[in-house]
């Protein structure tokens, strides 16, 4: 069992927790993820490791309540335990001195971009960060990202913070002013990663994206998470989660994410009927 040691609401339906998982904490590297289960009947779902504290033996997980498992996690309290945490899984991010790196984060994907951004900064890169959200309250971890970035650009769909627009608009602003970018990362909703990869390609910037397909074991045993990259079938859990953004078959990624849409709805409705009002989340 893996005990929750702290919990904080960071946006509407978005939470941050620290969980006791010493083996994971002592082996984790930026870009990796864990597979968790809330209970004996729980589903195995992947979550990015947003941070880790080796001394305390804890990892930080940031999630948005979207399905049954994440809703259930959102209702858990400090002192409660997750049934399982397996990890760290996936290949770590390729950290080295690139020169100038552009880090693009959207939604809860910002939690995934943060540890990579920090480590790239420590490796001597100039870090420019673009954070995107529908509105100001959904731009999470802004201060932390800003602390480890040389420059931070925020874009919101409604203009309630930073520039009005989406992350690709931020990319274009940088291009226009002639900023030379050596490598980019984009992590967030699939559609955001897709369009930031297209824009990066137009601008000639190499870009990594971190895919979050449906997984079961997370160790290469089942192939649920397969994606087409270039001409090859790759398993996001062991060959990824980061891939060359130019090469990903995005429509397929999005189709595959919708595979269990109907069952996901049933599962969540049943859970809500059981626990009652969850609008406070």
């Amino acid at each position: 069992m893996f005990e929750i040691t702290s919990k904080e609401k960071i946006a509407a339906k978005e939470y941050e927790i620290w969980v006791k998982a010493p083996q994971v904490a002592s082996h984790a590297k930026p870009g990796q993820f864990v597979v968790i289960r809330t209970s004996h009947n729980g589903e195995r779902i992947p979550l990015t490791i947003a941070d880790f504290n080796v001394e305390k033996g804890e990892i930080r997980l940031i999630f948005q309540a979207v399905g049954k498992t994440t809703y259930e996690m959102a209702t858990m309290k400090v002192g409660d335990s997750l049934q399982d945490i397996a990890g760290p899984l996936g290949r770590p991010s390729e950290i080295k001195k690139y020169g100038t790196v552009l880090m693009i984060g959207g939604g809860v994907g910002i939690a995934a971009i943060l540890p990579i951004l920090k480590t790239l900064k420590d490796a001597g890169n100039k870090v420019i960060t673009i954070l995107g959200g529908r509105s100001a309250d959904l731009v999470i971890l802004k201060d932390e990202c800003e602390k480890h970035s040389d420059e931070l650009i925020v874009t919101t769909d409604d203009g309630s913070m930073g520039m009005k627009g989406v992350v690709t608009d931020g990319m274009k602003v940088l291009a226009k002013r002639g900023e030379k970018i050596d490598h980019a990362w984009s992590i967030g909703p699939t559609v955001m990663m897709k369009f930031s990869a297209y824009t990066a390609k137009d601008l000639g910037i190499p870009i990594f994206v971190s895919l979050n397909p449906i997984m079961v074991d997370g160790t290469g045993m089942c192939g649920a998470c397969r994606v087409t990259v270039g001409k090859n079938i790759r398993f996001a859990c062991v060959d990824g989660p980061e891939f060359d953004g130019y090469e990903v078959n995005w429509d397929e990624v999005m189709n595959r994410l919708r595979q269990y849409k109907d069952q996901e709805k049933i599962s969540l409705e049943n859970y809500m009927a059981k626990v009652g009002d969850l609008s406070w989340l």
Partner: protein
Amino acid sequence: MAVIKISNNKTPIKEQDPKVRAHNFKEVVLGYSLEEAVAEANRCLQCVNQPCVAGCPVNIDIPGFILALKNRDLTKSAEILKSYNNLPAVCGRVCPQESQCEGRCTVGKMKGHEPVAIGKLERFVSDWEASQETINIPEISSKKLGKVAIIGAGPAGLTAAADLAKMGYEVKIFEALHAAGGVLMYGIPEFRLPKSIVEREINFIKSLGVEIDTDSIVGRSITISELKNDFDAIFIGTGAGTPSFMNVPGTNLNGVYSASEFLTRINLMHAYEFPESDTPVRLGKHVVVVGAGNVAMDASRSALRLGAENVKIVYRRSEEEMPARIEEYHHAIEEGIEFHWLTNPIEYIGDDKGNLTAVKCIKMELGAPDASGRRRPVPIQGSEFTIETDMVVEAIGQTSNKVLLSAFPELKLTPHGYIEADPETGQTSIKGVFAGGDIVTGAATVILAMGAGKKSAIAIDEYVKSKKVAR
């Protein structure tokens, strides 16, 4: 000389009616009563040369346990079984007896006779023992001979762990999944091997003092060098572990599964109990399963139980080359699985939302024998045809999982990517590191993995002892 009269056929065993069982996940075979088991035990000739024993990968004293059963001394019978085999209730259910013990049985060689139902008797005795209030736990040597790390809680690892614990070693198993059992938990369905039986066997192994650390991925959450520091020897029994795909166009359409994923969702994650269990699985109406091994039988019969209207197995070779256990094949036919021999998928076709709608197949014919000695299937030009389907499960085998291997680059591999290990000891290219089961042989059977675990346990004992003497 008295003439011994032996009935020609095995004592019939009760099974769930095919029409009923095709809609539930309960065990198909219901087992013998004591009287039936004794009747079957009486068919054993107790022959001197014991060909059955030589046919068993763990060399169980088969005539011995059957004789005790004949004499209605079930305690002794169970004791004999357990002294050779740590998982008898599992083996009685899933071993390919027809090519092992029963395949060599003297009675089976007599004209018009079926062999003694050794598997069913093994099952009976171990189930009887489990139903007793107290289970005999063998005496465990109290001296602590050393510490052994086992990677993977499947048949190979569990067997090596149990044998080493009995010898007096401190044993810790590192298991990547949240439950121990390996393929017995995620691969073989409930209707063939109830999970309560697997758990019972695992509890027995834990009672020997074996510690099992789940959610523990060697190479990720713990490194090989950490293991080397903390343990005297390491046994790798991770299984083959990565599904192969045909790689035909359309493989990533929604509705195309590897058998590993489909069966893991059902068996380990209990998707057949959705929504009581959180993990879903697609409920295909017209299902096509590719392959004709035991895994294909399990996948097709599972799809039927989830409510499929029809399930077709397509196999590129013919019935004769089919690798499945004969009992599973018969059960599949009884339940209404259709078999399409000499048929191979060449493309999956989907709609504009990425959902599978059909599979394009080609007819095959058998040509000259290939490396496996089986006649090689060759496509018949112009014989393409289409099957409407909303779900395909590919059960065409596995390759080696690289999670551990990539974290252990000094370990020598075979040209096929499996671990190079001595077949008699499991010794790998690295001192103190042993390996056995599918990660050495490629996908094989539960009992062969158990046999490898047994041999390695002996070799590990010798290795650790010699190391301690040298010190």
